[in-house]
């Protein structure tokens, strides 16, 4: 590769990294109470409306839950406390985020397991293919070689 390419690539990598760092710094965690309440409402399902979350639902119970969330947040309860409180009040399935303990943790773990497994399989497959290619020439290869030899 020409030197010009290296310089250009360095520029691209530098600009990209800088942009990503700036982007990451600009993204602050929820600071105000309102932002925290918003995130909780966004991840709680309205118990009567088939999978809509309480932030978006127009159902009366959803607006009641919104008010309760605001109340609990202003009392300074932690996210976990509020979620647990809601689960006791309305059932575990108001929480749109499945828990990471008990049997529910499988829904998080199984895909990760499969991702790692398939990545490992890919690596070993490529390694096998490479080894196979390196050690024994195929029939096609031998044919090409012999035909070339005959010609000379």
């Amino acid at each position, binding site marked *: *590769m020409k030197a010009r*390419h290296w310089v*250009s*690539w360095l*520029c*691209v990598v530098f*600009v*990209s990294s800088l*942009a*990503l760092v*700036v*982007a*990451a710094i*600009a*993204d602050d965690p929820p600071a105000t109470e309102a932002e925290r309440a918003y995130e909780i409402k*966004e*991840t709680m*399902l309205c118990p009567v*409306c*088939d*999978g*809509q*979350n309480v932030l*978006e*639902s*127009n*159902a*009366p119970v959803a*607006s009641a839950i919104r008010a309760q969330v605001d109340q609990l947040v202003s009392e300074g309860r932690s996210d976990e406390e509020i979620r647990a409180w809601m689960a006791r009040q309305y*059932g*575990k*399935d*108001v*929480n*749109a*985020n*499945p*828990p990471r303990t008990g*049997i*529910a943790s*499988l*829904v*998080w773990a*199984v*895909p990760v397991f*499969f*991702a790692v497994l*398939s*990545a490992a399989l*890919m690596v070993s*497959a*490529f390694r096998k*293919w*490479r080894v*196979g*290619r390196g050690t024994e020439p195929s029939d096609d290869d031998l044919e090409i070689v012999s035909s070339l030899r005959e010609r000379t």
Partner: protein
Amino acid sequence: MLVRGSGSCIVIALLGTIGVAIGFVGAVGGVITLVSALASKREAHHRRAIAWIFLMAGGCLLAVVAMEIGLLRDDFSMQYVASNSTRSTPLLYKIATLWGALEGSLLLWAFVLSGYVTAVTISFRWQIQDRLVAWALLTILVVCIFFFGLLVGPADPFGTLPVAPLDGDGLNPLLRNHPLMAIHPVMLYLGYVGFTVPFGFAVAALVTGRLGEGWLVLTRLWTLIAWVSLTVGILLGAWWSYEVLGWGGYWAWDPVENASFLPWLTGTAFIHSVLVQERRGMLRVWNLSLLLTTFALTIFGTFLTRSGVIDSVHEFSASSLGPLLLGFFSLILVVSVVLIGWRGDELRSPGSIDSPLSREGAFLANNLLFTLFAFIVLLGTIFPLIVEAINDDQLAVGRPYFDRMLLPIGVALLLVMGIAPVLTWRSTAGQTIGKRALVPAAIGAVTMVLALMLGAQGLGPVLGIGLGGFVVGSSVRHLFLAVLRNGWAGITGRAGGGMVAHIGVALLAFGFIASTSFSEEGEFQLRPGDRGSVAGHEITFIEIVDEMDGPDRVVRARINVEGRGVYAPAITQYPTFGRPISTPSVATSFVDDVYLSLIAIPEEGSDVVVVRVLVEPLVAWIWVGGLVIAGGTLLAMVPGRRRFSAFVEEIETEEAGL
């Protein structure tokens, strides 16, 4: 009135019943004829199957026409019409009521399927004695038997009532307030049902042992038609829910949405990996499995949405079809596994993928990611059912889960999509990548800087936007070179059309990322003349319009959106439906959408409204991206590239050598 109505209705319902019966008989007759023809191997015998297939299609057409007549004439002694239509339903929605409820939607399914079978029969009419084509038709007809069987028995759409009510109940109001109701389900079914055709050919290839690339070439066009219809159908569904449901989103990871998304994911993996097989003769087992899975997932989705096992806004009424659909799904699985197991040895292909840094490697990565994506969607959808079955525990798997698990995969897919076009087949030298990917990568970097300047923030969103720019860059580079070589034919064919579709995906990704990450909202309690402001958009509440539309109370709030005009979100109280339905109004532009919806129905006589204002950037680009994807797929169907393929390959090898 009552007498005339019920009299004509009996005739119509009878015609419909006869139509469905003819369809069933046609399908059975077709299967028997094909089986005996395959045994006798006589050409004339095969030809007889064509008549049965046409008979089946004719019967189904008769049934659909009968249902439409019943709907349009308000024949309420037909049970389906009485429960799903009313006299006051507008014409468009009367027509669309055909697919508004369970039985009718299955009738539409059978109708679309008959259409596909007829089209396949006509286009293969001279090769029908070919064993591959005969087996494919046979397989598709068995699927037809199943669906006509449902219509004849447990999901009969033509049941009658002894006494016709004066008026019907009507559809759920959410299904009759937007014209997309007339298009989205049909489009979705064209996609869903369309995968039956390649499925038939895949089974035929396995049965006949003709496992080469022949069947792939035969079905390529059909697969693309099914895929593009499903893509457009899903996006229209997203648009519809955006315009109608009033929460400002377009995708909720709802089980029914997932059911339509699952076959799309495996189907998308298939249309990519099939290129590896056509080019290198590899991945045969994998491609067959993907196609069989795709079809099985369409049946599984139908089971999910029509058996009442899940809660969803889109769900059909609970029915007794669950066990039948589950049984059919199991049958498909068993047949698929047995066939692939039986032919396993012959399917092994000789080649190997030399390097992960190659076109094949990219396709492989694409397939792994799509499969993982599909697996997570499937797991998340059925996990609550599994947990409930195991320990009777109720839990939900919602958007936060899908976002957390799937967004990284989406980012990885964008990366692969950007790199793939600069790779060559077999293996790619680092130098080649360095040279070809430089400009696309620079475009990606510039996109990120631009996004930051426009106010984007957050590592994930900005990275996604940058990769989107990279995808656009490398797709445009590919198209530019192709057009230089071949003129405008360069944008057609699988490579050209595919690149256009990728640009569409990148546009869609921009819209998706911006609208989910950077939306702002506000809720205002307004009296006439009051103002509110969200993300720089000034709104002014002008007046409230409270009127009766027949039996329904409709309240509109006329609101001026600064620089965009007057919009009127509404909220309607239907007497036959519990809580009021809010109909949003959206001020769209290519920069951002101002989404207005009324939160609660105002008290009568009051002029105070509660308005939710949502400002979502770049949403419109999701729909534009969908259009570009559809256009790209149509370009990919143009067979122009084949003529140039030898020429292009030469150039590609030259390029690789540089």
